[in-house]
Structures are given as structure tokens and as C-alpha cells.
């Protein structure tokens, strides 16, 4: 049994760690952090429990925002809508939840569940459905194992609550996205109501404490950025796959996503080489001198050289000095059922997935 209290300073760490796991996208955790800090300030710290602390019959429900992070930074939620969405799913399940879960440990959705948990006096489970950030409802471990995303409730600040029962997670994505647009581009939702037994079997474990640890390591980095990055890659069994200076950034919107690429020119020992990282909200593939270094679902994160802080795709600009980190994804994503939901082909890439460690070893 492992319990830990999440208070105001822990949320600072979480926000940074979640941006690392956000792999360039996932939305800035800042607004979610302030929201959660406000609720924790009012209601007290939130308990972070281990998945094994859940009984097999316990109900656990994910809380998240859906839509454009650039909208949520402007149209900040009311706060009550997340409670309404969560309770609508509880009602549909005819049961009270024992805990709140994060659907994704990366980006803004890592922090938002703590606001809800503080309001409801519930714990948050130290596990999520991605171990990183992905853009769509079905790119979740639970869906990979065939568990339903619905009943799912989407709620807005006006008090509108819509309950969806869909035939697949893909339909939940499609219908949910349409609702979110109608509600002004960003809403909150509760989804994937799961029994403790199913959750323990399918969740990606320990990801929030991992984000907390990453954040604590980088937050105190100061000018010792390279030291912090070294210990981070060691701890996560990742690798610095490139170090250089951004020389080109391209971005375009297509189908509601920001797609683009950043070209990084090597420094030091890699002075003659160039690395290109393509992204669709999140970073997808890193290629250097014609060969792939790493690809989704492995995590590709850019860290600013000086501060060691993660860089989101919208912050990328010419001249920025960055480390390109590859971190291993959760083992599930390397299996067939995982690759079917979130492999390179799910992002329209004609790339065979090979774990980045194997790619590095072969070089």
C-alpha cells in the first residue's frame, strides 16, 4: 500500500513532469495546475494511491478536458462542470466512484483530475491510460484491451451535460469532438468508468509518481540542466538521441491538428548532422541523416539546453538549443494491440515501429 499526499508544491513538479511526458503536445499543464492548486488550497491535499489499493469492485472514472488547449487558456472552466460530468457517469453506472484517474499523464490532463479529486474528496490513482499524451479518445490502454470509453459525459461551463453511449472508443472520439466544437472548442469530460479489477489489469502504472519525480528533478536544475537531463535519461532508461540548435520550424493546421517539423542542426560531436522531428500536436518521429532514431509510440521530447525544461511544439523557434530525448513507451504500446491503437500508422505515417533502443543499438 503506497499513499502520498499531493499538495501545492507537488503540483509544480507534476506540471513540469507532465510536459515532458506530453512529448511536445498535450496542452500546457499551467491552467490545470492553477485550478488544482486553488481547489487543494481550499479543500486540502489529494491522496495519490496505488492501483493495487483499489478493490476489484471499486469504480474508477477518468476526468479530463477535450478540445483545443489554446481555447482552455482563454475560456477557463467554471469548475463545477467537471463535477457534473463525473457525477453523470457515476449515475449512469449506478455507483459512486472510489477514485479519479488521469486519462493521460502527459500535458494538461495530468493536472485537471486533481482539481476534481480535491472537490470530491476522492483519491487519484497513480496510473493512467497512456503513460504519455495522445490526441484521441481511443489511444488509451483501456481501449486497446477492449474496454469501453462510455458511458462518457461531456460538460460545459453553462451547465450542459451530455451523456454518450457509443459502440466504440473511436465513435466516442468522433461524437465527443463534434460536441466540444459546438460548446466553444474546449469542454471537460468524464470517461472510461472501470471496475478496479479491469483498471488494475489494463492501466499503465506509476505514471503520475514518475511525472512528479521528473518534475522535481528538472525544477531544481537551474544552470545544471545537463546533469538533470543525464539523471533523467538514466532513470527512465531513455537516451539523448540528438543535441543541437533549431534551424527550421514548419507548422500548418490540417484536420484540427498542428502538423509540422523542426530541423535541428547538431552541436559538438554531432556538428555535421541534422535531425528532423515531425509532429502532429505531439512529436511523432525523429530522423537523423536519413535514418529513423525514434518514433511514436515511444516518447520524443525536446528539452531546452539551458533550463532543461520541456519545449512544446508551439514554443519551438530558430536558434533554440535543445536536447532530443527518446523515452521508452509503456510496454503495451509495443505490442500488437497497442500498435493497432497508437502505432505510427494511426498517425498516417508509413513507418514500421521499432523500439528506439533497437534502432540505437543497430547504428
Amino acid at each position: 500500500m503506497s499513499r502520498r499526499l499531493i499538495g501545492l508544491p507537488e503540483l509544480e513538479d507534476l506540471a513540469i513532469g507532465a510536459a515532458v511526458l506530453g512529448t511536445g503536445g498535450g496542452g500546457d499543464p499551467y491552467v490545470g495546475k492553477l485550478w488544482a492548486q486553488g481547489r487543494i488550497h481550499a479543500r486540502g491535499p489529494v491522496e495519490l494511491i496505488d492501483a493495487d489499493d483499489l478493490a476489484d469492485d471499486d469504480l474508477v472514472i477518468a476526468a479530463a478536458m477535450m478540445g483545443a488547449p489554446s481555447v482552455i487558456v482563454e475560456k477557463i472552466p467554471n469548475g463545477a462542470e467537471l463535477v457534473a460530468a463525473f457525477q453523470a457517469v457515476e449515475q449512469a453506472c449506478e455507483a459512486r466512484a472510489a477514485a479519479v484517474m488521469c486519462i493521460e499523464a502527459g500535458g494538461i490532463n495530468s493536472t485537471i483530475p486533481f482539481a476534481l479529486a480535491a472537490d470530491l474528496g476522492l483519491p487519484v490513482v497513480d496510473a493512467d491510460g497512456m503513460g504519455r499524451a495522445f490526441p484521441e479518445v481511443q489511444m488509451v490502454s483501456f481501449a486497446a484491451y477492449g474496454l469501453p470509453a462510455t458511458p462518457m459525459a461531456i460538460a460545459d461551463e453553462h451547465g450542459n451535460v451530455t451523456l454518450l453511449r457509443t459502440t466504440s472508443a473511436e465513435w466516442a472520439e468522433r461524437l465527443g469532438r463534434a460536441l466540444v466544437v459546438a460548446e466553444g472548442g474546449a469542454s471537460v469530460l468524464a470517461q472510461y468508468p472501470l471496475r478496479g479489477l479491469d483498471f488494475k489489469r489494463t492501466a499503465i502504472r506509476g505514471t503520475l509518481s514518475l511525472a512528479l519525480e521528473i518534475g522535481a528533478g528538472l525544477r531544481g536544475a537551474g544552470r545544471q540542466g545537463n546533469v538533470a537531463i543525464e539523471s533523467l535519461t538514466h532513470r527512465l532508461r531513455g537516451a539523448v538521441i540528438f543535441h543541437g540548435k533549431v534551424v527550421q520550424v514548419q507548422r500548418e493546421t490540417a484536420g484540427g491538428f498542428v502538423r509540422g517539423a523542426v530541423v535541428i542542426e547538431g552541436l559538438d560531436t554531432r556538428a555535421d548532422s541534422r535531425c528532423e522531428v515531425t509532429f502532429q500536436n505531439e512529436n511523432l518521429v525523429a530522423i537523423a541523416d536519413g535514418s529513423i532514431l525514434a518514433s511514436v509510440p515511444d516518447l520524443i521530447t525536446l528539452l531546452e539546453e539551458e533550463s532543461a525544461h520541456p519545449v512544446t511544439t508551439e514554443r519551438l523557434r530558430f536558434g533554440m538549443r535543445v536536447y532530443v530525448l527518446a523515452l521508452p513507451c509503456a510496454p503495451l504500446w509495443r505490442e500488437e494491440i497497442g500498435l493497432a491503437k497508437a502505432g505510427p500508422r494511426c498517425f498516417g505515417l508509413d513507418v514500421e515501429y521499432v523500439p528506439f533502443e533497437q534502432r540505437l543499438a543497430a547504428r
Partner: protein
Amino acid sequence: MSLRIGVDIGGTNTDAVLVNSADRVVARAKTPTTPDVVSGIRAALAEVLTPAPLEPVVAAMLGTTQCTNAVVERRGLRSVAIMRLGAPATAAVPPFADWPDDLRQAVSGHVALVHGGHDFTGQELAPLGEDDVRRAAATAAELSMPIAIVGVFSAVNPEHERRAAEICAEEAGVDHSISMSSMVGSIGFLERENATILNAALTEVARLATTSFESAVHSACGVKTCYFTQNDGTLMALDYARRYPSLMLASGPANSMRGGAYLSGVMNGLVVDVGGTTTDIGILVNGFPREAPFVIEIGGVRTNFRMPDVVSLPLGGGTVVRREAGKVTVGPDSVGYRLTQEGLAFGGGQTTFTDVVLSLGRADLDVPVPRPSLEHNLAEKAYRVALEVLERGVQRMRPSADPLTGIGVGGGSVLLPECLDGNVEVVRPDDYAVANAIGAAISEVSGSVDRIVAIGARAMEAIRDEVRQEAIAQAVAAGARSAAARIVLWEEIPIAYLPGNAVRLRAKAAGPLAHAR
């Protein structure tokens, strides 16, 4: 023919220039900035106006750091009444959520969350709660607090903010300080709210600063028309500066860059402003400072003020050079304005960056001094360290690897090499030392629009055109000559995670003053 005065108040010096209607500099002065500020202005004005000019002086333009200092030092700030237009949205994160305690205590007044605001398409989130606005305005008037009005997506549709401001003026009087967030910051509600609160808090500081400048100028040369330079390198009239003092934050670097552009004739390039303690590097795009794209922290508060994108390096003419345990260090400390007493070349005992450059014979000062004798090895090493600092700064700022012109301004720019970072050729125009005051004197007036639009609903070109026209109309409304107003900045930024392909359009127009030429 007529003359204009440009004044720039920096941390160390107050510079003034007199320019004629052809924008030629006819007199210049550099005087120390005084603690009361205004006596320094008087001294600088007296210097440029002696002997008395033959042509009339018709306008004065001032750039000042007083607002920045007030925020950083928490001095002279007012408590603010905040009016959020967004209920039921935004309640999850109240105002002042992430402020340093001392600044919050200095500024936090009254908070009202009322119905209103828009979504990203510009549709109403809720009708404006006019009665609540009126009640909050009456409270603010009673407490005599400046009012900060912040509406959700007001950058897309400022209608509710404008209506709320009207109601506030009815309740609290037309002279009451009312700040609308759509005039202060860009998209990002909390950052824009913070910016608007700081703007409102600064109105008293601004009133004092503008009044004392106005009276100093008036008594020095009879001029009644005063303008203040904004941080985008353009001008605003006195009453506007009093309402939106935050637009003066970081106007100093903007003035230097505008001055550098004017003096060198280079409209797209890199400006390197070398002072006594620091070097500021910024980028010129069509003759205007490139804007910082991200959140700006000021006094410990996250804001999205429009600010010039400037990197400030700990290297200037007075930066101290040492050898410690065999290792050569350059700064970050500096003798600053005491360089001319404490530097080796001036007979003092401190080895400075200036001494290093002079001893290597890489530059000469305008006023010749004996070449300081430094151990060659030390000088070479220190020079390399300093150059590395400069070149890293250049690398961070330059937009691409293409060749670029670097414009050296500021008193210390004589120390710059002829070439930086491989292909940045450095030019140093005449009057480089007072480029900031010149930048103030030649400034234009501007208008800007920042909007998220959905692609596909209408022809994109028609939307672009509308946004451009609106920016030009704003510039003209602010005092630009309409025939000469033009678009000087245009950006299209895609918005993530929204189907329907939304894009954010930003336009800025500028033109020379319609009067005063």
C-alpha cells in the same frame, strides 16, 4: 521647418535629441538619470536647446522606464477593482492565482465575476450582466480604485469590454481609470488579466510621470504636444499613455531598435545595444522590433503584454574581467557608469571588457584614451569568452542562418567586432550612442488586431483584408496620417486540436504622425 524632441530615460542615462522635419539630428545630449527623473530630463532638454534653435519645436516624444521600475520595485501601485466578464466560465481560477504575495497585497482590491464574454468564434458566451457591471463600477468609484475589465476572448470580440467600460464611465465618471484587456494583452486569459491589472495599478505612476514630463517640456520650449513611446516602437498620445501605461514597459529597447533601423537604413536585421552593464539584442522586422512570442514575466507575474523580443546579456563596456585560479572570467558584474573613473584605460584599477578590446587594438573610443597594457594571453582569452556570450545571444535571436546585418547602437557598441556568428556583419551608424532618443523622436503611431478565425466559413483572403483594414483604421484613429499608414506586421498562427482549421491572425499597421511635421 519644425523640430521635435526625443527623450529616452534609461536606468543610467537620460538621452535627448533634437531632430528636424527631415528626421535629421541637429542636437544631442547624454546626462545621468536622476533619482527624481524630472531634473535629469530638464538637464538633457536644456543641453539640446542650447543655443536656442531657430525653428519652432512642435512635439516631444518620451520613452521611459518608470513603469517597469514601479512594478519591479512595487512602488506607487494602486489597488485595482477587477471586473471579469465570463461567468459562468473562468471561476475555476480566480484573479491573482499565481502572483507573488507582496505584489498581490499591493494591488488586490475588489473582484467581480459577471456574465459576459465570447467564444473563439466571437459569439456571446452569455449576455453581458449590465446590472452587475454597474454595481461593481459603483463600488470601484466609492473605493476610488482603477478598474480592470477582462472579457473571455475579448481579443476576438471586444464588444462586451467596450460596453462594460461605457457603463463604468457612467458610474465612476469619464476621468476614472478604466483598462480594457483587449487593449493590453493578447490571447491567454490569465496572462491578459494579469497584464490588465498591472496596467490599472500603474495609472497613478503614469499620471505623475506624464505630467512632470509635460511640464518640463513646456517650460523648456513651450511645446504642448507630448507623445510617449510604446514597447512596439510606436507612439501614443498623452491621455492614451495615462490610460495604458503598461504599453510603455520595455519601450527603451524598442526605441533603440527603431533608432538603429532609422540611422542605418536597415529595416530587417539584428540590433545589438551595448551599454555599460548589459547588451540587449533584438530583431528588426520591417523596421519594427520583433515581438516576444511567449509569456513575459514582469515583477514575478506572468503576463502576455506585447513586448519586444529582446535577450539581455550580462556583458557591457564596464563588465569586469578577472583571472581566478588560472581561469579567465568575464562579469557578470560591471562597474557600469563608473567605467570612465574605474576602468584601466581611464586611469582606474579595474580591468573591464573595454580595456580588453582596447588593449587588443580591436577598437578605438571616440574620445581617445591611452591603450591599456594587459597581458596579451589574458586579453585574448577574455575576448574569446565575451565573444562567445555575444554570439550565443545572436544565435538565440537570429531568425535563420542566412546572412544578416547587425546594427551596433549604445555607447559600448564601439567594442563590437566587424562580424558576429559567422555572417552577421556589424555596422555602427552615426549617433549610435543616442539611438534610443532618436528612436523616440522618429516614432510613428500604430494600430493592431489579434483575432482567431475559422478557415472555410468565408474566403480567407476577404478575412485577411478585413483584418488589415481594421489595423490601418486603428492606426489612423490613433493619429497616423492615413495616406502613409501601412501594415508592418502580419502573422498567421494555426490553432491546435480544433477541427475546422482555426487560425490566429495578428496585424499591426503604422504611419507617421498626421500633425507635428
